[in-house]
């Protein structure tokens, strides 16, 4: 064993002292609550009583095998995420492509597209609820005046349309983030590549297929991961628009966790287990997506 030189020891101790404040904050505000959630997930507790009943993995068993509403909420969140991954991100990418070109008012469009994400989710939810109201909503009024009165309906109260409507509003609210990231990614692509390709006779589609798309893949993966994380954990707008209804048609996991924790359910332990379950699903999805990206990148490199 090599003895540590006192100077070196002092230097590394000093370094540790420097990271101590950050480490303390991390431990106190992240690590302890995180492990505490795991700990509480093993108990039946109403959040008030001085005693907690240890139930082991019973809460997780209940989630897995008995809680149909929980799985319905996961399915709903999955559907909204699917719409967000496809519709929202495709829209964001197309708009970013448009704004990356030399078009008039491009700065105006950049600001305009980024307005929805910075608005309060509650406000957005309430405004859209007002627009989509079945009785006096603007959308139905426009449809009727445009001669499409037969399409008018209670968009948020009809089980056939509620979830899709919520998903579309979610896309409207969220596409600005993807737009911003895609635009930043597009601007990072060296223009010389396009110029060289054009000099070699490549047309617009070839440039897009062989330059833009491959170079945008890391950004697309990042946007996809952020979309999954953001959508699966989103609930405020849905709470404002439908509160998970009608029946359970727009119920999502975080709304369910909130319901479990608050009165009348008051099941802190169970809510913690639900939170852990969502966390596992999200980590797994992000991991799968990242692995998928690595595989595609490797095969692309092999092809080259």
């Amino acid at each position: 064993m090599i003895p540590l030189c006192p100077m070196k020891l002092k230097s590394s101790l000093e370094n540790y002292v420097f990271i101590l404040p950050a480490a303390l904050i991390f431990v106190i505000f992240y690590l302890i609550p995180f492990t505490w959630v795991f700990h509480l997930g093993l108990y039946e507790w109403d959040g008030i009583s001085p005693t907690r009943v240890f139930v082991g993995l019973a809460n997780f068993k209940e989630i897995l095998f008995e809680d149909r509403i929980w799985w319905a909420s996961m399915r709903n969140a999955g559907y909204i995420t699917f719409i967000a991954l496809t519709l929202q991100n495709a829209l964001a990418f197309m708009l970013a492509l448009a704004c990356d070109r030399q078009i008039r008012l491009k700065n105006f469009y950049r600001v305009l597209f980024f307005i929805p994400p910075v608005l309060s989710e509650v406000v957005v939810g309430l405004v859209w609820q007002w627009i989509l109201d079945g009785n006096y909503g603007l959308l139905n009024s426009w449809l009727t005046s445009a001669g499409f009165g037969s399409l008018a309906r209670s968009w948020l109260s009809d089980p056939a349309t509620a979830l899709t409507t919520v998903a579309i509003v979610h896309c409207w609210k969220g596409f600005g983030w993807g737009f911003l990231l895609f635009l930043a990614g597009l601007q990072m692509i060296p223009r010389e590549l396009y110029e060289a390709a054009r000099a070699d006779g490549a047309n617009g589609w070839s440039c897009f297929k062989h330059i833009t798309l491959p170079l945008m893949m890391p950004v697309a993966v990042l946007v996809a991961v952020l979309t999954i994380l953001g959508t699966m954990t989103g609930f405020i707008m849905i709470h404002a628009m439908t509160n998970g209804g009608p029946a359970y048609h727009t119920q999502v996991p975080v709304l369910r966790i909130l319901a479990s924790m608050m009165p009348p359910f008051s099941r802190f332990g169970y809510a913690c287990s639900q939170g852990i379950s969502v966390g596992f699903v999200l980590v797994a999805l992000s991991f799968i997506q990242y692995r998928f990206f690595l595989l595609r990148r490797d095969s692309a490199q092999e092809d080259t």
Partner: protein
Amino acid sequence: MRNTCLRRMAVPFALVCLCLAGCSPQPSVPSKTRTRVIVWHWMTDRQAAFDELSKRYEQATGIKVVFELFAPSEAYSSKVRAAAQGVNLPDVFGILGEKRDLASFVKAGHILPLNHYMNENNGAWKGSFLSKAVAMNEFSDGDAYGVEPGIYGVPIDMMTIRMVYNKDLLKELGGDPEQPPQSFEEFLSIGNKIKEAGMQGLVSGWGEVWLVNCLAYNLAFNIMGQDKVLATIRGEVPYTDEDWIKVFSLFKEMQDSGVLADGIVTMINKNAEQLFANGKAVFAFNGSWCVNVYKGMNPGLNYGVMLPPQVSDKYPVSIWGGAGSSFMVNARSKNKEAAVAFLKWLTTKEQQAYLSAATMSLPANKDCLTGIPDVLARFARDLELATHSYTWGISEYPQVIEAMGKGIQSIIIREMTPGQVASEVQKAKERQTARHAQ
């Protein structure tokens, strides 16, 4: 070099210490010299009235009472629970939730029993309240909560949940504005007229499960009586009993008749109140707090108050009612005597009359019922018909209540039949009974 290093380290350390100091509990008695009673509440519409009462109390006694408002109610509820876990509750606070939650607070030693104060001077304080208001905060021998019998809260107002109707719209539909429908058949028959006139029928916050369940229990009490409802909660009668299926069927009948407003299944009560106040709905199912809300939204609204329509004459129609909000005294507070003294003052006739007039709420003090506005007085009528789950001595499992509320929503959107809903509710009941038996 060493000094520079120490200086560099001192700043982050100071920041960490500041952060951690911010996490330390606040002292419950902030004033060094004078007693200050801190009251937490969630009632946004009453802050001005509370502040005025606080000013009057300080003038009378020299004791400062600070009303701290935390809203919305979900945020308030979280704050109170977090404070309870941190043993950091204020001197006086309210609890939002079920009676089971109140019981948990009591068992955890957070709430001061008030029997002694209520019963002194031959029960003068207790006797000043409407009995239904006190019952909400009382635990009795043999109830299901396992709490020492006694009174644990001070009611500051009353509420009843009834139906209200727009007199002008009812007249337009050919009805008598002074004779609203009394039977369920009469109520349903208006549905067709409402459809034809292109109006909206009944509006209510049925997107929130509790309000739809209130009406379900009202109808259940009318069809099968209180004993059978409580027997169902005790697990002695299944929800698949024909009387319960009848209760669920009534919601289908309402939907089929057109008496329910479009979109009622996702309607929050604020929107329902807006629709009714703007004269766009004929009926609303709402609590007595709506008097103040409608007054704010449309002072000229011409409306009347009615009992929920009667389905059967076997049992009386019931209405949901009891204490609207109550205050509890923190058992660990150093100011508990001052807090009790303040609550005694707050519930005297004079202060209750002021609070009632300022917030258009029903007073908890029984001597104040005369002299309240007519429309409010209508909400206070037939208080003997009032019932509330807080007074039943037993609570239904929240999962069952949720299954019932969501099931009724499913009936309204024609996704499930009343029989299927009854079966789902019974399954939820059996699951919970089995879980709690373990």
